């Protein structure tokens, strides 16, 4: 074992500790804070990239914190899927942070600016820890850091609507966290352990299946609120549309996905399914809600007038997609779900950052105002169009690959109704995305709407957007690099 076995713990801990050190720098040199905040995330990304190919043959890289073997101490457990998601988290947080530097200094000032970067780093580190941990209580702790920092980041502008949206988020998020804690209590009472790997073994021969089923339901509800699964999504459109754009990108591109991953982890790593028919029927119920989410999110997105609101509802719809992949219970479906996390993270982050560009340069939030936008902001518009194509799932993009596998997985699982839902969802996505593309490129703008001094957004804001949108194309064309190993990992899980 080389030094790389220490990498996961540093990927998680270094951003958290640097967040604590950042106020000192803010006190000395306020100007350096945005740059310094990138360092720990870049460090984590490098460690994450160095880990590629280093995951041992048994399928995961375990790390015993404090040197205590797993059921006694806390274990970090990075499997292939977790590593994949950690890389997505590192990449998107780094790009969103790079975008923030110019964008956020207009909306937030003074001491709050440092607080913004502190919370940003805490949120990134917590997301990495949330994915990496192999202990259910540690999962709860990281979930709380994540939740607290995201509540505050939604409210950071201090604008009255933002505070209200944040409070709504707290009112839904905090009870859901408590439900997760109660679920942890339930499974602890039935098994006497908190380590995920140990739980799998003990759940298989536990005598208290009723307790475990209710614990599972509470987990699904608790993480479902964080993941904004359809009937529990009420906080999402407000919070995502009112938060500053880089934060919307993080919330929409990563936070909901990480929470979905938690459900995935609980379902397949902890409960390992199959111990009772009731688990399967819970998952069936989740599938119905997910299908409803796809349709509801799509229809609501079409009805929106505000650009960010539309993207937020599109997220509701796409979370439904990911859940439909999980509930298919086939390797293809799960691969599709994971690949959709990548694609959705890239595309949604890109769309929100593009919306941020429109707001930053012209102050336009309404879809109507985007008519004829390409004349003044061609780069932003083209990036937006590319990301939209991925959202709609048109062939060369990653969105197509992920939806292909989602549909394949559902056909193999015999859920033909969900295949129809997925196709209808794609049509709905086409309606709301192509409307905007049509407005941007083929409609004349209003008088004076796109004139004046200001040109397209600054390069430091365009670069992250373009990296993200080219990412959707890249992972679409080169999907054969990742798909086989993901399929392997999923077959291993099932």
């Amino acid at each position, binding site marked *: 074992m080389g030094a790389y076995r220490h990498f996961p713990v540093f990927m998680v801990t270094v951003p958290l500790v640097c967040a604590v050190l950042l106020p000192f720098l803010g006190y000395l040199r306020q100007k350096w804070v945005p740059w310094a905040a990138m360092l720990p995330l870049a460090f984590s990304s490098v460690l994450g990239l160095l880990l590629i190919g280093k995951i041992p043959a048994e399928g995961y890289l375990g790390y015993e914190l404090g040197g205590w073997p797993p059921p006694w101490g806390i274990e970090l457990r990075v499997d292939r899927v977790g590593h994949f998601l950690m890389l997505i988290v590192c990449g998107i947080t780094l790009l969103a942070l790079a975008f923030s530097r110019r964008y956020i200094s207009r909306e937030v000032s003074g001491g709050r600016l440092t607080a913004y970067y502190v919370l940003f780093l805490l949120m990134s580190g917590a997301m990495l820890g949330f994915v990496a941990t192999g202990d259910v209580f540690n999962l709860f*702790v990281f979930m709380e850091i994540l939740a607290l920092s995201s*509540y505050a980041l939604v409210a950071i502008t201090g604008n*009255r609507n933002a*505070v*209200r949206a944040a409070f709504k988020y707290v009112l839904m998020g905090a*009870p859901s966290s*408590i439900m997760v*804690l109660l679920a942890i209590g339930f499974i602890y009472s039935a098994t006497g352990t908190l380590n995920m790997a140990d739980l799998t073994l003990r759940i298989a021969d536990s005598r208290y299946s009723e307790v475990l089923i209710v614990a599972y339901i509470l987990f699904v509800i608790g993480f479902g609120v964080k993941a904004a699964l359809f009937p529990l999504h009420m906080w999402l459109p407000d919070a995502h549309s009112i938060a500053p754009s880089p934060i919307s990108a993080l919330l929409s591109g990563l936070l909901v996905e990480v929470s979905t991953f938690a459900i995935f982890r609980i379902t397949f790593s902890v409960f390992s399914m199959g111990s009772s028919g009731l688990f399967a029927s819970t998952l069936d119920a989740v599938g119905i809600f997910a299908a409803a989410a796809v349709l509801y999110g799509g229809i609501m997105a079409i009805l929106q007038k505000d650009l960010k609101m539309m993207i937020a509802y599109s997220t509701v719809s796409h979370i439904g997609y990911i859940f439909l992949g999980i509930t298919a219970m086939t390797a293809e479906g799960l691969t599709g779900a994971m690949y959709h996390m990548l694609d959705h993270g890239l595309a949604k982050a890109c769309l929100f950052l593009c919306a941020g560009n429109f707001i930053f340069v012209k102050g336009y939030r309404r879809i109507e105002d985007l008519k004829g936008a390409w004349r003044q902001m061609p780069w932003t518009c083209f990036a937006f169009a590319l990301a939209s194509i991925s959202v709609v799932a048109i062939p060369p993009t990653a969105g197509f690959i992920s939806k292909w596998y989602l549909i394949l997985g559902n056909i193999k699982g015999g859920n033909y109704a969900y295949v129809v839902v997925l196709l209808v969802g794609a049509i709905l996505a086409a309606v709301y995305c192509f409307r905007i593309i049509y407005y941007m490129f083929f409609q004349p703008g209003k008088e004076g709407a796109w004139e004046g001094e200001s040109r397209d957004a600054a390069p430091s804001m365009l670069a992250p957007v373009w990296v993200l949108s080219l990412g959707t194309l890249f992972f679409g064309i080169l999907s054969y690099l990742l798909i086989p190993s993901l399929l392997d990992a999923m077959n291993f899980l099932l």
Partner: protein
Amino acid sequence: MRLFHNYHYIASMLLFCIGLYTVIVRRNIIKKLIGLNIMETSVFLFLISLGYLDGGIAPIGIGGADPSRMVNPLPQALILTGIVVAVSVTALALALVILLYRQYGTLDVDRLFRDEETGGEEGEEKGETA
């Protein structure tokens, strides 16, 4: 009868439901936060009771205490973490309440969310108290 033997658990479930009811039904946001705290406390009570042992002693190994009679120390350690988390969430929520009250002049959710549909820019409600 196992249900009545587990009366600690029943009490904590009852508290959990009372807390959730308060969070959902009460219109005053301070009361909602109180409900949230009741929920948290109920889960703490539940977890602590899980570690109970009939006739148990505190898990402190001094003076030749018998380890087999000690209560389970793990839930106590978890709850210490849980309490800190609960305090942190409450602090943030109260900070938001202060800001909300300053901006809307009310603590009533119905008033807070009434003008949501219209975008919320009009309808200053200063001076009204909840």
